[in-house]
Structures are given as C-alpha cells and as structure tokens.
C-alpha cells in the first residue's frame, strides 16, 4: 500500500488530491484562477497598448500606499488603491500630453512611490509587513475575504471588456480613427487605466508585485503571436496564465519551493519555449523556401 501511494504521488495525481484537502491550498488555487482571469484580460490590454512600463510603475508606486496606510492607520486597501489610482492617472495624463518624456516621468513616480512606502514604514512604530512579502506575495496565505474581492473585480473586468470590446479594440489599434468615429477615446482610456490600477493592487495582495508583472506580460506576449483577434489573445492569455499558475503551485507544493517565484519560473519556461518554437518554425520556413 505504501508503495502504491508512493507511486501515485510520483505521478502527481495523489498529491493534487492530497493538497486540495487543505483550505489554504484550495484558496490558493481559486485565487490563482481569478488572478489568471484578470491578468489575462488586463494584461492583453496592457501589452497591445504598450503600457507594460506604466503597469510596472503603478505596481511599484502602490507601495507608497502601504506606507500611507500604516502611517495614518487607515485600512491597507484604501491606501494602496488611492495611491495606485493617483499614480496611474498622473502617468497617463503625462503620457497623453508629453509622449516623448513620459517614460522618464513614470520612472520617477515608480521610485518615489517605493521610497515613500519604505520611509513611512520606518516612521511607523511596531511590527508590519516586510518588503519581501509585498514583492513576492503570499498566495498560500490568501484569506477567504480576498477571494470575494477578486471574484468581484473579475466580474467587473469581464463585464466592462465584453460591453466595450469594439471600442477597446478601436482605441488600442488606432485611437485617432476611433476618435473620428465618435468613440470617447480619452474617457475609455482612463476607465481602462483605472481598471489596470485596481487590478494590480488586488493581485499584488495575493501574488506579489513581481508575479503581477510576470502574469500581465508573459501570457499575453505568447498569445499575441498565435491569434487573429484581441478577444482570442485575451482568452488564450487567461488559459496560459491558469496553466502556469496551476503548474507552478503544484511544483512548489511538491518540492517545497516559494510559490510566487515558482509560478514565475514556470511562466518564464513557457516564454522561452515559445521563443524556441518560433525560431525553429522560422528556420524551417526559410529552408522550405
């Protein structure tokens, strides 16, 4: 019997059932699935609009919100959402007005947000969350309340995307033409940037800053190459993201590794595999000619 259990365990089947008996593991799986859904949709928008740097800026600046929340003793979530929205709108306003130097401005806010967070935490007496847990998150310690928040955010993201799909497509591909056709380009752009900011805050809480950026960029980057529409890009990104998350969680559970970092390594493996496949494909295409 012991042998048989060991065999099943090595096959991975037993360990999955085994793992799901723990509530923290079930929560982790559900949180990862919601994070995948939100990141796949929002990430596709971020990638096609070339907003990866802006998303990184928002995510880092939001750390300032943690500092503010602890220092003034207000709930964590208000501090981070407030700061990330403010940073997102400032960055977007600059990007719209002075395109050529907006990256510098984003870089400055990025650094200022983090520094402000660190200093305000220094000034706050008592014990508080360290930088590492902000960077890498703690997907294995997700409270049930956060899952409710994420399901709500996921529903809002999905609804807005479906309702405004044609407009989002138009402003992302050719904003000028969309404007001529009467699409409220700036308004929709700000709505979506706000959605990006809020998503980042919630997902950082669950999976950490670094994993947010990985999940926002890697699946959409891979998906974009193989699809013919933004919709398919979003769907494929969600699927890839779920695959990376589940594989990562399983590996981290079995080999006792840090979950966030393991998920990132799995996604990165997918990323390099897709690059390799592309290189082989283009090589064969060339020799075929």
């Amino acid at each position, binding site marked *: 019997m012991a042998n048989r259990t060991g065999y099943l365990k090595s096959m991975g089947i037993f360990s999955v059932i085994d793992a799901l008996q723990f509530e923290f593991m079930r929560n982790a799986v559900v949180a990862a699935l919601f994070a995948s859904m939100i990141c796949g949709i929002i990430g596709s928008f971020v990638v*096609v609009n070339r907003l990866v740097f802006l998303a990184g800026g928002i995510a880092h600046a939001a750390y300032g919100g943690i500092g503010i929340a602890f220092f003034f003793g207000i709930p964590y979530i208000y501090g981070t959402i407030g700061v990330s929205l403010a940073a997102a709108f400032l960055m977007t306003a600059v990007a719209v007005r002075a395109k050529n130097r907006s990256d510098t401005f984003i870089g400055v806010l990025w650094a200022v947000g983090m520094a402000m967070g660190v200093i305000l935490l220094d000034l706050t007496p008592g014990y508080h969350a360290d930088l590492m847990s902000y960077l890498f998150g703690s997907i294995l310690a997700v409270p049930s309340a956060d899952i409710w928040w994420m399901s709500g955010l996921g529903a809002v993201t999905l609804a807005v995307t479906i*309702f*405004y799909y*044609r*407009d989002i*497509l*138009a402003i*992302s*591909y*050719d904003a*000028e*033409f*969309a*404007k*001529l*056709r*009467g*699409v409220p380009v700036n308004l929709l752009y700000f709505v979506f940037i706000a959605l990006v900011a809020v998503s980042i805050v919630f997902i950082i809480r669950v999976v950490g800053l670094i994993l947010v950026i990985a999940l926002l960029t890697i699946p959409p980057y891979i998906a*974009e190459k193989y*699809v*013919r*529409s*933004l919709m*398919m*890009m979003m769907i494929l990104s969600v699927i890839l993201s779920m695959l990376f998350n589940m594989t990562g969680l399983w590996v981290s559970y079995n080999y006792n590794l840090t979950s966030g970092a393991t998920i990132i390594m799995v996604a990165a493996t997918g990323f390099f595999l897709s690059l390799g496949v592309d290189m082989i494909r283009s090589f064969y295409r060339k020799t075929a000619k």
Partner: protein
Amino acid sequence: MTENDPIIQVRDLAFSYNGEPTLVNVSFDIAEKEFLAIIGPNGGGKSTLVRLMLGLLDPVQGRILVHGRSPKKMAHCFGYVPQDVNINIHFPISVIDVILMGRMRYQGRRRISTEDRQKAMESMGMMGISGFENRRIKDLSAGQRERVFIARALATDPEILILDEPTAGVDSSGKTELYHLLKQLNESKTIIVVSHDLMIVSSYVKSVACVNRHVHYHPSNEITDAMMDMGYQCPVELVAHGQPHRILKIHGDF
C-alpha cells in the same frame, strides 16, 4: 445652403507646434465634389492642415467650417486614410475587424449589424481585397494594407474622403489604379489627397493646394514651376515628369 456653397471653408487659419508656426494666414474654400491635391515639401504643414480639417487638431487662430459647422461636430462626414498604415503592425487584428472600425457610429455604442458587414464587404470588393477578411493585418504587404485602410475609410460611407499620402507603399500600376478609383468615387464624393506625385496629381485632380506654411490654392489642376520647386528637391524628377505643357500661373512668395 445652395449647391455651390463650399463644403469646407478655411478662414485666416494659423497653427503652431511648440511656438513654431507651421501654418500662417490660410484661407481657401473647397467646393462640393472637388478633387483636391495637397502638395508641398516635407514639414511644410500638409498633414497638419489635413488634421485641422478633420478636427483632430485645434487651430491657434482662425477657423475651419465643414458645412458651416465645426469639424469636430462633422467628423462623421469624413473618411480618413492616415499616412502611416503600418502603425501597430503586430496588433492581433484581422482585416475585417479593421474595416468594421469604419462602421462604428457617432452616437453611442452599437452591435455590428448584417448591414455593417455587407458594407464592409462591399468596400473590400471595391479595393480588390475580397477574400482577405480573416487574414491578420501583419501578414499583408504594405500595398494590401493601404487598400485595407482605404476600404475602412470607404466603409464609413463618407461625404468627404481624405487620404494622406496614400501611394507611399504602392507600385506605379497600383497608383494609377488607385487614382482611377478615386476619380470614380469623385462623382459622388469630395476627395482630398495629400500627395508627392505631381504627375498623377495633374492628370486626375481638379484643384491643387500648395502648402508651405502659407497655402496657395489653385482652382485648376495646372502644375507650376513653383509647385515643382516645392514638391521636389530633386531635379531628376522634374525632368522625368516633363512638366512643360502644364505650366501656367506662377504664384509669388514661396
């Protein structure tokens, strides 16, 4: 409004980028069913003028009226083909979705109807790209992409068609074909085309606007020496195009 009222009126228009004047004291009218070519050197303000007409830029001074109203309110009259059809080339979008952008409506959000699809297919047929609807935009050649963008502009069913250097990535037989089509469309639409190609300009258009900070409007398709000088820096082009018979009026102060 009578038949002969101009469709676009430009009055004392001025525009500047970062304090640098790009257009100064511009006034002219464009009549209905006009076929206007806008020519001039690079950086002379051609695209700026077009973008002002479309309402994408606001004039620093003066005004533009389209059917007597501001261009922003009349955006639905325009079919616009931008200069750069290679923007966002890796964007995951199919040909039909690009063309359907032309069917987006001024008033609010709306689903794509069968009529929209028919209209899109029709304009694809006109541009000779039927059967391309599900191709991804990056898999087309530059010339085919140009056609997709013109088809998108046609799908809007515009009263005024504005094309900003539409022949950049098109070979010479493609150019002739395109202008032939524009001439046909001109029977029912006003057409404004920014171009470098003076020879084609002279054989198809009805009027010419030379833009180089100032605008000189010529209500006929004659090509003058001065136009040649500002259109081309290269004398070989001049000779090759053989300007002779079309030289008529020469304007003053370029």
